């Protein structure tokens, strides 16, 4: 497992990362509220995965086309999908609330791992047309058991496709622990197919950013795939319909909540004087506005 000391990110970027993390957290909180009030049918929280999501999507830059799974809300928001656009799907209004082309952020795919093959095909298709072929695809730990994931890794390896696979291993596929889903790691599995890979902790956005910058360089320079597996925490249940207390230990739930990457990063940047109370209040007020707009649109 690779981790590194903090060194190379400038403070603007750090503040940007934190702002996106706080925004995602706020939107996620609001969505959970809205679901409780019956305004949304379902919500799959991304809480605990903000560092992994914001760090990775900022690292790959705005040009990479992103094929998400369905929990990449922080990626979506960072890419400019508005909160209203994001939750439209969970309010039962549409299958995709945003313009996928415009944001280079494609629709959520609810059939697990199906998007991995689309991503590889898209990259091959772009390369064949002489266009930028760098593609990022997100997948969960549980979804890697589906045949499509293995097929996509093999295809990417054989075609040397410019695809960065990002597996957010949050330790659970609904109630199934990742350790019972596989005996190795997704990163090792990728190497078995001939894809270079790294396994990292996904709770520090700077580590994530750095590793993803490097991974993206690998993909772009060598025009070959790469897989990053990020260990993240799932703070809430699988979805708002899921009571994780049924199958998950209290301690584990408490430990995950305590290791909240958003709070940790806010504390860290405060301690480093990269942000101060005023800056935080500013972001808080922006987030409050976003939440209010969201509530107004959906709670009515």
């Amino acid at each position: 497992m690779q981790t590194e000391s903090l060194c190379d990110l400038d403070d603007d970027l750090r503040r940007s990362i934190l702002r996106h993390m706080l925004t995602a957290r706020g939107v996620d909180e609001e969505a959970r509220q809205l679901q409780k009030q019956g305004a949304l049918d379902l919500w799959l929280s991304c809480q605990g995965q903000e560092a992994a999501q914001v760090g990775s999507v900022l690292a790959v830059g705005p040009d990479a086309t992103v094929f998400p799974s369905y929990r990449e809300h922080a990626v979506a928001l960072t890419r400019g999908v508005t909160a209203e656009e994001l939750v439209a799907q969970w309010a039962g209004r549409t299958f995709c609330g945003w313009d996928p082309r415009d944001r280079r952020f494609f629709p959520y795919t609810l059939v697990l791992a199906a998007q991995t093959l689309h991503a590889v095909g898209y990259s091959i298709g772009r390369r064949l047309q002489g266009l930028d072929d760098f593609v990022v695809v997100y997948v969960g730990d549980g979804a890697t058991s589906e045949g499509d994931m293995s097929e996509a890794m093999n295809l990417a390896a054989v075609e040397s496709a410019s695809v960065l696979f990002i597996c957010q291993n949050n330790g659970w596929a609904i109630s199934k622990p990742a350790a019972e889903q596989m005996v190795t790691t997704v990163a090792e599995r990728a190497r078995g197919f001939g894809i270079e890979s790294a396994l990292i902790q996904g709770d520090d956005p700077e580590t994530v950013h750095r590793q993803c910058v490097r991974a993206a360089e690998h993909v772009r320079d060598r025009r070959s795939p790469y897989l990053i597996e990020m260990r993240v925490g799932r703070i809430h249940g699988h979805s708002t319909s899921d009571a994780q207390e049924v199958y998950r230990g209290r301690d584990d739930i408490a430990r995950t909540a305590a290791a909240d990457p958003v709070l940790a990063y806010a504390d860290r940047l405060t301690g480093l004087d990269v942000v101060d109370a005023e800056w935080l209040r500013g972001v808080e007020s922006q987030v409050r506005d976003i939440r209010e707009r969201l509530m107004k649109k959906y709670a009515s």
Partner: protein
Amino acid sequence: MSARRQTPLAETINATLADLLERDPRVLLVGEDIGRLGGVFRVTRGLRERFGRERVRDSLLAESTIVGHAVGLALSGLVPVCEIQFDGFTYPAVNQLVTQAGRMVNRWNGDLRLSLVVRIPSGGGVRGVEHHSESNEALFARVPGISVAYPSSGEDADQILRHAVGMGSPVVIYEPIRLYWRRGLPDRLGGPAVPPTSARIVRRGADVTVATFGAITNDVLAAAQALSPSVETEVVDLRWLAPIDMTTVLESVARTGRLLVVHEATKDVGIGAEVAAAVSESGFDSLKCAIRRLAPERRDYPPADFERDYQIGVERIKEEVLEMVK
């Protein structure tokens, strides 16, 4: 609409599964999240605690694995009862079901019992997100080696499950999600069907036969009740979609002279097509008017906000029946 206080469908299935596990050591359950969690619909709750993790198995997250390795379990002499989490996630398992499970007995020249049941929660009406409201029963109904059932009540689910585990060939059982925990469903006629693979007349009536199945059966019953006594509707709950008990349907149409088929899956090449075609072939002379099918037109199940337009409601069933007796 009369309504008894029934045991909800999910509880009945849970009890039936428990009893099957209890009586037959060869039976085991396999599916995503069915153990620790008790299933996303809580249909299997408590079973892992009671029968252990070896017999109530939280499977890997891979539907081809679920069915594919269940074929192996069945070959070894066990009786796996698999669960697919939602109808919309059945497709990765289609290859193993159609080309393997469904053909294995034949491939062994008949010298094999392959007892394998796949339970699939199905249907909409619960504001599901994409893929969570599907009805793909017609997909398997056309496959010769696979039997397909779609019970609409706890009593039927119990009877069908018990029969299915003993058939020695694969059975896919669809379970209507929106009935899992509903109480107060319309009353039905009579007791369990005889034989267990037959359709069931759940309401008698002389004017029109409505053949249907699944959750919508209750809407048909509600419509029939509302139309009575001016129009008396006979309601046939098909229960089995492959093979279909056409004898019961044809006998009913012979009495009423009119057939309406109602289902929740889209109309094209669906179960309604089969029933209508079979009656237009073998019951033509008893028909007083054109057969009708009432089912969603050819389009994807929409986002939840639009599912009311998509779903066939009690009103449309009433209108259709009234049109037929006009």
